[in-house]
């Protein structure tokens, strides 16, 4: 028996996987330092605004992947 790991089989599948990883990265170590500032934007701390942006981007990404049928 092969010890293959089940990876996406289509281009849409790979794009969807890349988008999900991208969304997770937005709230993690490589990106967070850029928003870890005392600056106030729209009346809120920058990190609070970024957390709300992550919510919007995440929902939009999931909606987009549903639309293209990237994840069955």
């Amino acid at each position, binding site marked *: *028996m092969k010890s*293959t790991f089940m990876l996406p089989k289509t281009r849409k599948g790979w794009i969807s996987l890349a988008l999900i990883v991208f969304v997770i990265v937005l709230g993690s170590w490589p990106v967070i330092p850029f928003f870890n500032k005392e600056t106030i934007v729209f009346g*809120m*701390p920058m990190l609070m605004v970024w957390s709300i942006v992550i919510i919007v981007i995440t929902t939009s990404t*999931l909606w987009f992947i549903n639309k293209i049928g990237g994840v069955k």
Partner: protein
Amino acid sequence: MTMYIPLLITISYMIIAVLLGYTAGKGKDMNNAENWGVGSRSMGPITMYLLIAAGGVSAYTFMGSPGWAYSKGVPALYVVVYLTYMGVIAWYFGPKVWELGNKYKYVTQSAAISDRYESKPLGGLASIVTSIGVLAYAVLQTTGAAYILNVMSYGMIPTWVGVFLSLGVISIYLYRSGLKAIGITNAFQGGLMFVVSWFVGLWATNQFTGGYSFRPIFERVQADIPEFLTLPGGLGDMNVTFWTTSILISVFSIWQTHWIQWMGAASKQSIKRAATLLPTFYIVLIPMIAVGFIGIFMYPNLNNPDTVAIQMAVDNMPVVVAGLLGAGTLAAAMSSSEPCIHATALSYSKDVLQPLFKWDEVTAGKWTRRLIFPIMAFIIAPISIMEPASLVYILLIGYGFIGQAFPSIIGMFFWPRATKYGAFWGLFAGFVVTVLFSFVITHPLGVHAGIWGLLINTSVFVLVSLVTKPASKATIERFFPDRYEELYEDEHVKKMPETSA
């Protein structure tokens, strides 16, 4: 007399919850584990949205988020981010889990683990050990519910009465209607929490600033305590590494409760639609976090930061608003504890007692819902009343362990070569490392103990799986039907010359 209005509002919420939950299972035979356990797999996207969302927002989140904002500042936002990502997990795994459960009639995570790894003891072990974390979480919520009842009654309802009152209310509708009751009460509780959070947040903002913008609050923070606006926060204990790893371990923790909730959906599409919009619910935390920041200036010397929002409501807000916050927080506590009680009863019955005593489906069905009573009376209630200091430690271990089940789940959907020995030893090694790095050498290099555990777990899982015998071809074919031919391609090729010869 007006002092009792908050308590009246809180009690009214409990009565409405009982009525909604009790009638939810009308016309269904609740002695059937399929009906009681997964609500006959009948929930649409709106109920699923509120069921999962309200289950995620606990009393700890409702009281703890303002508490963290009060004591640390922006580190409180990590909860918003990890709950958002848990929506991604629900969206990705939920439909897969539902499909598998619908096809092979699993109702619990452990049942699927037993089947995939061809080992009932592994499923039973997974059920018992993951229940430690789930029950600790239920105890925390019950303690929170009792605290709210105590505050709203101005001390008239002591902790032990509050514990029995909140568990008693849950038991009525949970016994009667199972997951259907959780679905309908969570929908009500979710709606209530959303409204109350914004209402209280904006009310407190108006009282503090004279307007409805958060800007004056944060400008004051920026001027007086700027360290509260960035990581590692006011206490200096959450750097970017710990923020990231805390989010990741929470995302990797697929709870037994989540699994069962997904199973209750009417279709794969119901879960997908609900989970796509799920992150939007967690904006509910933003106004409560703002309340925590306001508390920094209103209560500079508060002993317990988690009480900041309730304290502010009781001292400064009209009794109706205070009552609504009490009801909202109680809703958050109950909506999080009831799925834990339900999932534990279901899993103990189906994954531990049924194989142990060789019960048939009818006997298991009858016992499943009855198990909620001993679980509440002999585990949750006494521990909640004792309020042990070590509870947080139990919860820490629990979280660590729940996250350790992740490689086994990956083996269920993505890696056919995974074996029961790999799953068992990976789980064991991950658990030991998580305990070690939670209590002895705390979070080395600022990385969450659970992530260290997961790294070791995954390595052991892969190595042991590669040197042990995989599951039978029949099992692999059921779990990986699309790739079956490809997986055994070499063997087909080897066999072909023999056949032709």
